[in-house]
Structure formats: structure tokens, C-alpha cells
């Protein structure tokens, strides 16, 4: 009796408390708010400050970079950018990076989306593992044989070989993201389209593909970013005509003893385009990076 009584009594306040708990705010003390604000400011500063410093240095002359008194107060100059873009031919490198990233992403989507679809619908986990192995294997172990084969085929220094090697980065990423995307699309949609007379491939083309545009955008943007940032494959496989931006900055260090202003301008030139793309496509990038993570 007493037990029962206690239970019924506690039920009303408990459900009320649950209601407020879901909103959470009333329970937080102001001390916690202050702490949280300070911690968030520290986190943002820690993540942004180095990039800001790079940007500042790219507008300084080398004399100002060496002067601790001119850390924040200096006369900005665009000389470094003019130097990098004109004298060092960075427009060509920007084009190369863009072209390699774009083509390798597009081709990887063509190969990867149907593959991810089949692997998701027919739960081909072992086949998926083959493609995902590419994420795990250290790139160097593949580069030696690639370099041998492609230099025998006289392909090193051409765009094809760079695009192929970047597809190797992009494809597993696309398969991984698209698999978890297709897993979340209900099969019933395709089944009802098949009842209405479409073939299975027709259902994929006319129903599933249009529905997965958001997933493909996610996968494509992420593949583009990783291809843009890739350094090791391009370092070995690119030639003077196909050099991509990350390799071009690296060269900057070796010839000029270190022209810090120019180097920071070059580093900014590589980073800015990809950051602008990222800012406009935030939502997609976050969903791509966390794809499949919560399924455990």
C-alpha cells in the first residue's frame, strides 16, 4: 500500500520535472553560463587565431614579419600576393588543383554512387570492405608500384595519372558516405515504383537517384576537399605542367631560402578557395564527416 501510494504521488512532479528538463535552461546556473562562454571563446580563439596570423603575415613585408613590434600594427601590402600570383604562375597551379579535384570527384561519383547503392541494398559488406581498404592502406605502399607502372607508360606528369590517384582517395570516401545515405532511404519507395511498372534499374534512376542529390552533394564536396588538399600523391606523380597547389607551396620553401611573406600568401591562396566552398556548404560537410558515425 505505502509503496503504491508513494509511486502515484511521485508521478505528477516527475513528469513535470521531465518537461522542464527537456528545455534544460532553467536548471543551468549562471556560473555555468559564464564558464561555458569563456570556454567557447577560448576554443574559437584556439582554432581561428593561427589562421588569422597566417593571413596577417601574408600582408606584411618580410621586414615587418621580423619585427615583433609590428605584430598587429603594420602597413599592409599586397606585394606578396602579386609576387606569388604573377611571378610564380599560381594561376596555373590553381587551375591544375581545381581540374584534378573536379574530374576525380566527378568520376568517383559515377563509379561510387551505383556501387554504394548495390552494397547498401544487397548488404555486400565484404565487397564494401575491399573499397574501404583504400582508406586504411598507407599511400606510400602503393606509390612505389604506381610510379613504376605509370612512368613506364609515360604517364607520370600527365593529368590522367594524378586524377586516377586522387580518385583513389575520393572513391572510398564517396562509397562510405553514400552507403550510409542509401541505408537511410526507405526501400519501399523503389518497391512501389516497381509495382507501378519501372524496372529495378529504372527505379534506381528515376526514384532513388533524384532523392539522393543531397547525399551526393555531401560526398562530392568532401571528396573535392580531400582531393584539393592531397599532397603526397601529387608530390610524386605530378610534373611541372600538372603541379597542384600543395606541391607548389612546398617548392616555395626549397628555392627561396624562406620568403615568409610570400610563403604565407601562397598558403593563404591554397586555403581560401576551399574555405569559401566549405562555408557555403557547411551543412553537407558536417553530415559527410559524421556519416555512419552514430550507428556505432
Amino acid at each position, binding site marked *: 500500500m505505502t509503496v503504491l501510494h508513494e509511486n502515484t504521488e511521485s508521478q505528477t512532479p*516527475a513528469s513535470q520535472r*521531465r518537461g522542464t*528538463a527537456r528545455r534544460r535552461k532553467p536548471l543551468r546556473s549562471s556560473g555555468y553560463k559564464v564558464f*561555458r562562454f569563456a570556454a*567557447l571563446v577560448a*576554443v*574559437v580563439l584556439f582554432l*581561428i587565431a593561427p*589562421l588569422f*596570423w*597566417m593571413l596577417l*603575415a601574408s600582408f606584411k613585408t618580410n621586414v615587418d*614579419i*621580423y619585427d615583433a613590434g609590428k605584430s598587429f600594427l603594420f602597413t599592409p601590402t599586397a606585394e606578396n600576393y602579386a609576387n606569388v600570383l604573377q611571378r610564380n604562375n599560381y594561376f596555373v597551379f590553381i587551375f591544375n588543383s581545381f581540374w584534378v579535384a573536379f574530374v576525380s570527384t566527378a568520376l568517383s561519383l559515377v*563509379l561510387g554512387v*551505383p*556501387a554504394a*547503392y*548495390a552494397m547498401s541494398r544487397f548488404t555486400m559488406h565484404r*565487397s564494401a570492405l*575491399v*573499397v574501404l581498404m*583504400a582508406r*586504411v*592502406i*598507407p599511400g*606510400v*605502399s*602503393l606509390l*612505389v*608500384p604506381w610510379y613504376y607502372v605509370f612512368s613506364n607508360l609515360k604517364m607520370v606528369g600527365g593529368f590522367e595519372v594524378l586524377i586516377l590517384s586522387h580518385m*583513389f582517395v575520393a*572513391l572510398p570516401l564517396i*562509397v562510405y558516405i553514400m552507403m550510409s545515405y542509401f541505408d537511410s532511404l526507405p526501400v519501399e519507395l523503389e518497391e512501389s515504383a516497381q509495382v507501378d511498372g519501372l*524496372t*529495378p*534499374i529504372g527505379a534506381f534512376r528515376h526514384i532513388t537517384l533524384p532523392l539522393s542529390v543531397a547525399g551526393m552533394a555531401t560526398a562530392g564536396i568532401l571528396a573535392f*576537399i580531400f582531393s584539393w*588538399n592531397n*599532397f603526397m600523391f601529387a608530390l610524386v606523380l605530378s610534373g611541372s605542367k600538372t603541379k597542384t597547389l*600543395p606541391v607548389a*607551396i*612546398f617548392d616555395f620553401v626549397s628555392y627561396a631560402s624562406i620568403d615568409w611573406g610570400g*610563403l*604565407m600568401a*601562397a*598558403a*593563404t591562396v*591554397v586555403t581560401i578557395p*576551399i574555405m569559401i*566552398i566549405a*562555408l557555403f556548404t*557547411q551543412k553537407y560537410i*558536417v553530415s559527410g*564527416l*559524421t556519416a*555512419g*558515425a*552514430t550507428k*556505432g
Partner: protein
Amino acid sequence: MSVLTPARSSGQSARTRANFSAWANRHRKWLFAAPAMIFVGLLIVFPLAWTLYLSLTDSQGSVRAASDFVGFENYLTVLTDTERFWPAVGRTVSFTLVALVCEVVLGMCIALLLWRPFRGEKWVRVAILLPLVATPVAVGMMWRLIFDPNIGFANQLLGLVGIPPQPWLSGQDSALPTTIFMDVWQWTPMVVLILLAGLTSLSEEPDEAARMDGANAFQRFFFVTLPLMMPTVIVAILLRGIDALKTFDILYATKGKGGGSFHEVETLNVYAYGLSFDYNQYGLSSAVLILFFMIIIGSMWLLTMRKKAGSK
């Protein structure tokens, strides 16, 4: 007649098309999956077999030059090499472990800070995204300037609080920790995003039940949230761990060939790259790569075993 012939042939081609489409639909599973698998397979299986073969020869100089089969000699050389190989293994392991621990602990703290909605959330999310998409080589160069012993901002900051300048990247003992710091800066955000996705998909009930039982915030985190988050934490460790083991860009960009003049930051990846492309020791580097590969597969296997054991 002349009308009939084209009609028949178009009927025939329609039939072959229908046949093909029926065949394609029946075999769509492999039709869809095979091209990607063949592509990746060709770029992986053949090179791995080749690397395995090279590791048993004394290939050097040019890959094309004839080389002799030497059996397991390369492996013996590598495994008894206490000057370059074992230190590189040590650095790889310590780089990966320290970076992973820092990234997961820091990442969890930041994810908890961001868990509940707040004003200005959008700006924090932008800040989190920026390091993730920044080009690693450019990031390496950026830190090289900041950590420059003479003109770097890091030492200027230390000067403000009266700490003498540190050598950072140029110090023999401080170079590896400094590169770990860079890795933490760039990749903690990724852990934050993964953990945050996990946190937001948690159900509220267990947390509330603990709250009603009078558990404080720490107790609720360690006894309720953390155990429920374990699968997500392991995914984050797995994804980040694989990439941390293979770190190359930042190390090569900040310290160059051989991981610096005293090999301060020479991890297995940098060592193998250097052996292959700076010194053309293909036989030896292939042996290093096969061993490296085994380390990676082994640690992944261990982690997935733990994941399965944990989810039971």
C-alpha cells in the same frame, strides 16, 4: 517488302535491348558494384603484391634496374635496425597515441560544451570547420612561422608571461610534441563533430532518470552519457587513428626530408617515403611498408574486436 525489312530489324533491336535490360536488371548487384571494386582492386591488389615481391629483392637505384632475390634479408635488416626503423616505429606509436588521447579528451569536452543550444552557435561551428578543411601543407607552413624560434608568435606570447623562448620545431626533443600539437589543432574538430552527432542522437531518458536519482553532472557524464557514447567514441578513435598513423603532410611540410636533420619527426610513413623517393631503396622501403601495413591492419583488428566485445 521495303517497309517490312526495317520494321523487322528495329523489332529485333528492341528485343535485344529488352533482353539486355532484363539481363542488366537481374545482375544489377554486380553491374553496379563491380566497376568501383575493379578500379580500387587494380590500384591496390597489384601494387601490394608488387610491394611484397620488391621487399624480397635488393632493388635500389632505379626500379627498372635488374635486382636479385634476397629472401627475407630486407626484413632482417629492417628489424635489427635500431637507428632508423625502431625509433620510427616508436615515434609513429607515440604520435598516434598522444594525438588520439588529446583529440578524444579535448573533443569530448568541446562536444559537451556545444551539446545544448546557445547563442552564436553558428559562429562556433564555422570556427570548428575551418581547421578541418585547411590544406595540411599550408597548415604546416603556417605553424612553421608561428613556431619559428626567433620571429614566431608562439615565443612572443611566452615572452609576455616571462617564459624564455623555446626551440619548438627546431629542438630535438620538442619537435615531435610540437607536430602533435598541430595535429591536435587540425583534427580535434573532426572528433568534436563525430561526438556531437553521437550526443544529439542519444535519448534523453537515461540522463533524466539519473538526474532524478540525484546524480550530479560528473556522475551523469561518467556513468550514463559516456557508456552510452562508447560506440561513437570508438568510431572516432578508429577513423582518427587510421589517419594519425599515416600522418605525412604536416611532418614533411614542417621538417622536410628524413623528418629533420636528426630524424626528430621521422615516423614510419615519412621513413618509408624517404627510403622510396629520396634514396631509391625500394627493396628496403617495401619491407618497411609491409611491416607498417601489418601494424595498421593489426591495430584496426584489435580496435574492431574491442568494438564487438563492447557492444555485446
